[in-house]
């Protein structure tokens, strides 16, 4: 098999055949090795979260991956191919360049189907919000929709102080019944304070830089459109096969969907809502 | 002499008109090559008989039925040796010095590809581990090693004897061996002198003379593997059955 080892002869057949064989083995070996090394490096450089989001985003249903500009009606139909990170999205840049950042700002909170969305904060597609504080830190919390959906969780798992969170990376987790979900962080930074949400927020985050890029967060009018679509999706999921229940009656929504609809596949619903594949 | 200059090609001519199918060759072969007796379950299709005698008849009903006994062994194919080229791990070797196709059981993994490749069914597989009666193992031939279960084996023209002859010659300071010094067990044991063995490359040798005889033929000659075992019979029906050149010629004459 090997040159100079017992029984080997330098015939063309041997050279060609074994040549091919060894190159193939080498190719296979190196490829595996490369991916191992890359994986190792990625772990070292804390790309795990980003990679996780990337692969999760790919596995999310298309209905979930709608582009934000569909909510504003700028697109009829568009699926995001950038992992909801508009900061590096050419299309988003184009659409927003001509209007000043907060041209369509409004102060009054938006009410959709009894969900109140204050406009003093920016919303992440994973139903978390960000609110700047005088101290230069940012409060992060769950929006009304999420709050109603979950009600009172059975348990919350908050990050240790000082942990570094990043956009679309897992921020904190909660448990409800036998389904657990993590919330995506709306911005990069270091966790400086945590809370069980009793005061309405969960994390205080101190970004590295004074000025932070929030282009990926929802604001102003589009929030309404977004919430509308979100709500419709939820509705569709909650529809009772027997009585076509509808919540579109303007009444205030129930506080705890999960409790009121225990027989629904919450695992899937929560996955869809909080963007976890 | 001439035979000693150019490399010998050992071969056989078997005279079917002389074979009475006694079975000596089969037995002498088994003794020479340490082939074990049959297991109780063994039969014609699982037994090991390097030299095997078939009864070949003319397909006619009684009393026109005629038969010859045809000793069949490895034909030591000289060209594109079918078993040699297919063996995945060089357990079959064609010896260019003698034209003998050797099987190396210790290297064989028992895939049996060579057996499917052999048109003469001259290869045998050890379906069982060899077993000898108590004490009988003392009668094994020291020149041939025993084989284990799961490997293929076949006739090698009693290679052990060739080695012995060469050793003897070497001791006497001769380079080549005389044809008379080397004869396989089957040929030696034939009581009717039906098996001729010798050097086909030597034009004057008895075998090459006989091989040229118009009554001589080879089995499956058309496959072009140049087998080195010839058969001979003067009975027309034999030639018809084996459709030899002779019978073809006869047909021609019949037509023309």
């Amino acid at each position, binding site marked *: 098999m090997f040159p100079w080892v017992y029984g080997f002869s330098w015939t063309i057949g041997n050279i060609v055949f074994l040549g091919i064989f060894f190159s193939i083995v080498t190719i296979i070996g190196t490829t595996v090795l490369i991916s191992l090394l890359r994986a190792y490096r990625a772990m070292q450089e804390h790309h795990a979260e980003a990679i996780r989001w990337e692969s999760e985003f790919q596995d999310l249903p298309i209905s979930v991956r709608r582009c934000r500009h569909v909510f504003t009606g700028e697109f009829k139909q568009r699926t995001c191919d950038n992992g909801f990170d508009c900061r590096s999205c050419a299309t988003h840049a184009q659409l927003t360049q001509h209007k000043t950042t907060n041209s369509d700002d409004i102060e009054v909170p938006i009410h959709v189907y009894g969900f109140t969305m204050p406009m003093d904060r920016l919303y992440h597609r994973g139903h978390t919000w960000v609110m700047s504080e005088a101290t230069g830190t940012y409060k992060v919390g769950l929006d009304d929709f999420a709050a109603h959906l979950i009600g009172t969780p059975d348990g919350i798992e908050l990050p240790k102080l000082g942990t570094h969170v990043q956009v679309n990376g897992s921020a904190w987790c909660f448990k409800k019944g036998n389904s657990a979900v993590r919330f995506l962080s709306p911005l990069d930074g270091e966790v400086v304070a945590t809370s069980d949400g009793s005061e309405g927020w969960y994390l205080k985050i101190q970004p590295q830089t004074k000025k932070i890029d929030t282009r990926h967060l929802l604001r102003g009018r589009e929030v309404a459109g977004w919430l509308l679509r979100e709500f419709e999706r939820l509705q569709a999921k909650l529809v009772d096969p027997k009585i076509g229940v509808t919540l579109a009656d303007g009444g205030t929504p129930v506080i705890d969907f999960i409790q009121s609809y225990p027989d629904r596949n919450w695992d899937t619903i929560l996955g869809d809502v909080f963007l976890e594949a | 002499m001439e035979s000693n200059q150019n490399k010998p090609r050992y071969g056989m001519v078997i005279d079917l008109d002389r074979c009475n199918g006694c079975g*000596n060759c089969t*037995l002498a072969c088994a003794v020479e090559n340490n082939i074990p007796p049959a297991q109780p379950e063994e039969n014609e299709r699982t037994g090991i008989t390097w030299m095997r005698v078939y009864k070949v008849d003319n397909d006619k009903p009684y009393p026109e039925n005629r038969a010859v006994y045809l000793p069949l062994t490895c034909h030591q194919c000289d060209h594109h040796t079918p078993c040699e080229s297919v063996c995945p791990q060089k357990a079959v070797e064609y010896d260019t010095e003698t034209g003998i196709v050797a099987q190396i059981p210790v290297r064989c993994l028992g895939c049996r590809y060579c057996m499917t490749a052999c048109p003469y069914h001259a290869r045998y597989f050890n379906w069982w581990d060899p077993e000898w009666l108590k004490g009988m193992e003392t009668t094994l031939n*020291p020149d041939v090693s025993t084989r284990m279960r799961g490997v293929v084996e076949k006739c090698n023209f009693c290679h052990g004897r060739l080695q012995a002859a060469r050793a003897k010659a070497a001791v006497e300071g001769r380079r080549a061996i005389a044809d008379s010094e080397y004869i396989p067990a089957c040929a030696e044991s034939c009581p009717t002198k039906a098996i001729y063995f010798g050097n086909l490359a030597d034009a004057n040798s008895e075998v090459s003379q006989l091989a040229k005889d118009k009554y001589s033929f080879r089995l499956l000659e058309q496959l072009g593997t140049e087998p080195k075992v010839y058969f001979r019979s003067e009975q027309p029906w034999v030639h018809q059955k084996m459709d030899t050149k002779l019978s073809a010629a006869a047909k021609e004459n019949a037509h023309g």
Partner: protein
Amino acid sequence: MNITRREILRFVGGSALGLLLTPIPWKALDDSAVWTQNWPWIPEPRRGDISFKLTTCSLCPAACGMRVRCVGNQPVSLSGIQTHPLSQGALCPMGIVAHHLRYHPARVSRPLRIIQKNGSSRSTAMTFDEALDDISFAMKDARVSSQTIAVVDGRPGRTASHLFRQFAAQVPYGRYISYSEVSLDVLGSMFEKPIGPLGYDLDHAQVIVSFGVPLCDCWGTPARTARYLGKKFEGKQKLLQIEAYRSRTSEMADRWIPIRPGTDAAFALGMAHVILKEKLSQAKSKDLSEFESIVSTFSPSVVAEVCGVSEDTIVETARVFSMSKPSVAVIDGLTNSREAQAAVMILNLLVGNVGWKGGVAVRREVPTGLADIKNTESINSNMYSIPDHSIRVMLIDESLSGCQLSDTLLQKKLAENGIVVSLSPFVTERPFCAQYVIPTPVFLESLTDLSSPHDSESSSMSISFPLVPSPTGVVDPIYFIQRLASAAGVVNIESGTMEELVKRRAGVLYGEKRGTVFNASTGQLSGVRNLLSTDDMWNALITGGCWIDSAEIVKSFPAFRLSAFLSKVDINKLQSGKNQLVLVPFIEKTVYSNSEISPLMSKVGQESGLRPFGCRAYLNPTTAEVIGIHEGCRIVLQTNKGSMEAEARYDASIMPGIVGVSNTTHPQNFIALCEMNDNAAICPTPVKIQKV
């Protein structure tokens, strides 16, 4: 500088990797493969210095010269001696693997007492003396009740045979029963006075008419087939084979005459009829007229009808046989009725082949150099002439080859309280009904002299000399007979070991200065008178040589009676078996004599189907299809004698309407299914076949 653990680890790992890139580990791997080539439990051949020793095969009277390849002292293979005048380097399949017999599972090394209880037999070991006591007691009992004490010898003419005769001559009611080639015994007993040992001089015959004798299948001397073929191709010898299936011999024969099984007698007498009618005979017989009257009923037309052949065939055969001199007719003695044997021997007498070169040779006795026996006539006899149920003690010498006489016959002659003592190296279903087995040495362990083959022109003598010691507990037949003699108070039975006695015989032969001696080690054949000493003779004989008597043509014969055995012959009885399925045993002398065979024989039966194998029944395809049996299916053969299971095999060389079975005792004896005629010869037996 100091080395950290890390560095050490790195070094080790690195060098390990480096090593992988060198051929070293791979070579080691390769070698390991070679070391583990074979399971440890598979025997490896013993090494040792190779030598060749010479001796003579004792398995059958052919007495072939043998070249024995030995590793150390262990015989590992056998081959013939090319220069041997009788065997000419040929051996039979049994001979070629005879060195395995020592290890046969049926081998016995202690005397056994066997108790038969309804079919099954139980054997218990006993000491030699115990056995001796029991037997001599039975002999005393025989004297009181005036019953026969018989010694059965299948290989007459040996030194041992002479001792047996001495024994029989001196014990009261002693009988020495010998049989070799039974048909020749029949011929002999047609003469009014014994004319000496007979033999078929096949080599010089121009025409051989064989009634089912496997002449080309190692019957007699294995080398004969080659000699015959030589003559055949030169057109110097013709063989007419008369039998129901196309045997090996039929294939070799110039002419094969298929006749219905069991009609050999009819065919022979048919030939006799033609010979007499056409005045082709010049035989002078006392009872010619009587014989003519018997034969008159066997006109070719009738015989043709009975045998299923054309009239011309019979006439032609008769003419060829009687016109071409020398010619000889032979018939197998053990599977044919006495009538048939007689009828065929009569042919030889009619055309005057007896005593002719190339006919039935009349040979001279080979002197033993031992004291002569007075009342030879009275003690010598054959099994058939013994009155039924008269034998009290039957000593059968099976030390060289199994007893060929049929069980039925032996049983018939045995008294109710009769016992059988078998001198045999093996114990199997043969000896069929022995109460005592005295273990004897087997070939390569035993020293014995061997008498002439059936198929040679003149008498001969050779010696099978032991190359390996026999296991303890095994006794030589003559030692046993000597001890038994002294126990029975028999006075002058020859004393001395086998070697001494045989040596004495060699001396006597040397003294007679007649014949020639073959020396295997030199390959020389020289006249006895040219030998320097007895030792020369002895040494030649014990190393695969042989002594051959000079042939002599006998001038005058005593008168003979043709119709001796034909009193009961009846054309109509011979019709039996016509138009119905009959069971016929093949005559497979080589592989299936009644003695044990090497397990390696499986190669030519079980493993290749070359020879009829134990539990297989062979049918003509047409017959099989008629009954609706396909190849390989299990069937049950049923006759009046019982039923046995067998595997059906197609064979177009067998006459339709016949079920051929091997006459083997291994592993199943179909003979048990066959009917026997008055003199216990196997005859075609009507059989029924069912599928399993």
